């Protein structure tokens, strides 16, 4: 198995606060790697360090052998590492289909392309792919809707579609089911399982243990900015240290 993403010795402090301390993590190709931990453990900070929103004080983030530190967010995106946001960061003034067309265009056109004289309606291939993914997400009947007027749950799914349409090498999911109703959560799990079958590598940050244990191949536990345990779901389930620090001793 080859390593897709390799995080080495990453440190990050805010003011005096140690948000991340000496993080080392390897993500294997085709695997779904979950990062769990209590609130404020540094999960989102770690994700932000990967996609260029934050720059770590120390350490490297190597994606397919290339250091991503100091690269612009859009460059990291083009390298193949794509993030799906926790709070929906969509384009509220555009239609649902256009919301998915934008990342699809980004994937095809690169960082900049002046295609001002091409007609948007001639982009049949991209459009078909976008519609296919939206239907996959159960958003098929909404494609012409104003994205800003959708429900929160639909926006979350649109977020996911925007990430998937880029067919990334590595997908970073920040709490993909937070705030979803049970049946929506199950639907999302099914969907993510299907993506997994296609061999897409994923990092998932999640609170919902049901989601974590139904999807993850490996789990890393973050507490107070440090990784206290890493292993298969079974290893983590049985790890007393994890139960101590994270679950307060409760049985998983």
């Amino acid at each position: 198995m080859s390593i897709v993403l390799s995080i080495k010795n990453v440190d990050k402090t805010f003011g005096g606060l140690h948000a991340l301390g000496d993080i080392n993590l390897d993500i294997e190709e085709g695997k779904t790697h979950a990062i769990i931990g209590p609130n404020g453990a540094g999960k989102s900070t770690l994700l932000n360090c990967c996609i260029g929103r934050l720059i770590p004080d120390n350490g490297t983030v190597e994606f397919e052998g290339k250091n991503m530190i100091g690269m612009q967010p859009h460059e990291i995106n083009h390298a193949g590492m794509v993030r799906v946001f926790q709070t929906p960061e969509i384009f509220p003034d555009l239609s649902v289909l256009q919301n998915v067309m934008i990342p699809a265009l980004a994937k095809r056109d690169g960082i900049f392309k002046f295609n001002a004289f091409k007609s948007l309606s001639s982009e049949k291939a991209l459009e078909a792919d976008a519609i296919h993914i939206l239907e996959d997400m159960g958003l098929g009947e909404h494609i012409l809707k104003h994205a800003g007027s959708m429900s929160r749950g639909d926006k979350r799914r649109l977020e996911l579609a925007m990430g998937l349409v880029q067919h990334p090498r590595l997908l970073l999911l920040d709490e993909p089911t937070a705030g979803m109703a049970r049946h929506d959560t199950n639907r999302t799990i099914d969907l993510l399982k299907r993506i997994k079958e296609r061999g897409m590598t994923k990092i998932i940050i999640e609170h919902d243990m049901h989601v974590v244990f139904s999807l993850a191949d490996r789990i890393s536990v973050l507490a107070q900015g440090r990784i206290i345990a890493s292993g298969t779901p079974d290893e983590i389930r049985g790890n007393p240290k994890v139960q101590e620090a994270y679950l307060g001793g409760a049985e998983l």
Partner: protein
Amino acid sequence: MSMPLLRNDWVVMALFTAVVLSAPIWLSPVGAGYPDLLQKFAIFGIFAIGFNILFGLTGYLSFGHAVFLGIGSYTAVWSFKLLTMNVIPAVVLATLLAGVFAVVIGFLSLRRSGIYFSILTLAFAQMSYNLAYSVLTPITNGETGLQLTMDDPRVFDSATTEGLPSTTLFGMDMSGYPGFYFCAVLLIIAFFISLRIFRSPFGLKLRAIKSNQTRMRYTGFNTKPYLLTAFVISGMYAGLAGSLMAITDPLAGAERMQWTASGEVVLMTILGGAGTLLGPLLGSSIIKYFENIFSALNDGQLHEIFAFLPDWLENIVVAIAGEFVGDGWHLTLGLLFMIVVIFLPGGVVEGIRRASAFVRNMFNKSATDESELSAEKE
């Protein structure tokens, strides 16, 4: 744009061309069917259409676009002075030079967004305006304005002996209707380019920047070059419009660069509907049309208009209305502007859309009412 036919660019362009070229006919009943005014519609239409590509699509509010208008005018007049009275080189050079300036000003201004962007563009405009009045006098001729003189070299033209020459298109005099049709053709081209941009992937990306710029960065776009391209295109439109002004009247003054002129194009775009295809052209034509009518009215004419009223009422109405016409036209404009921003942020186009939706609803409602009634009968 609900009709499927209007989705086809060529249908839209055919309609647009027909409407523009026949404007002298169908605008004459409202007193606008003469070349001077029609030419103004076309020129300010181009200016506003270009401004809309920046403001309407990306949401970046420039308060300094009049600079490019001024640069266009100066360049055109210099082309008439040094090269030839033919309008083609003037138009081409003006558009290009405005583009060059737009690259510089845009590159610097686009390093910031929001109010800071507006203030940066405003600062550049004010600097250009002040310099045009002072140290750049050798180029701009200061307060007098740059104009043609008898001893201009005009290297490509044969020397004229009598009076100042007028602008031509390969020998065709550019005053009157030929002047309008020249501007009209450029307006059609300008509109066509704008239409293609609006309906292109590029245009969609610009709209996405307006909607959520941060997200664009994480979606894999470098937004700066997109914004700069939009800025430069709109600057070139302004330069083109500026050169066309000089064709109508070969005179360029610094007041064309003043920030009130920049404010005017903002107003036109907003009034018509920022971000819509036709809005800016509608807005600029409405403003120029009413400016033409209102600023020419005087109290005598007002008395004629309101002669049907009883005398005492007529005097009151005329006294009030008198404040809004003639020199008071700007007051009307300011009020109009406020009303549009307060009540109709989408401009005239949005107003038309709402009105038509309202009418459609009325019909639908009466239709459903009837069916309900008939259902009850059964």
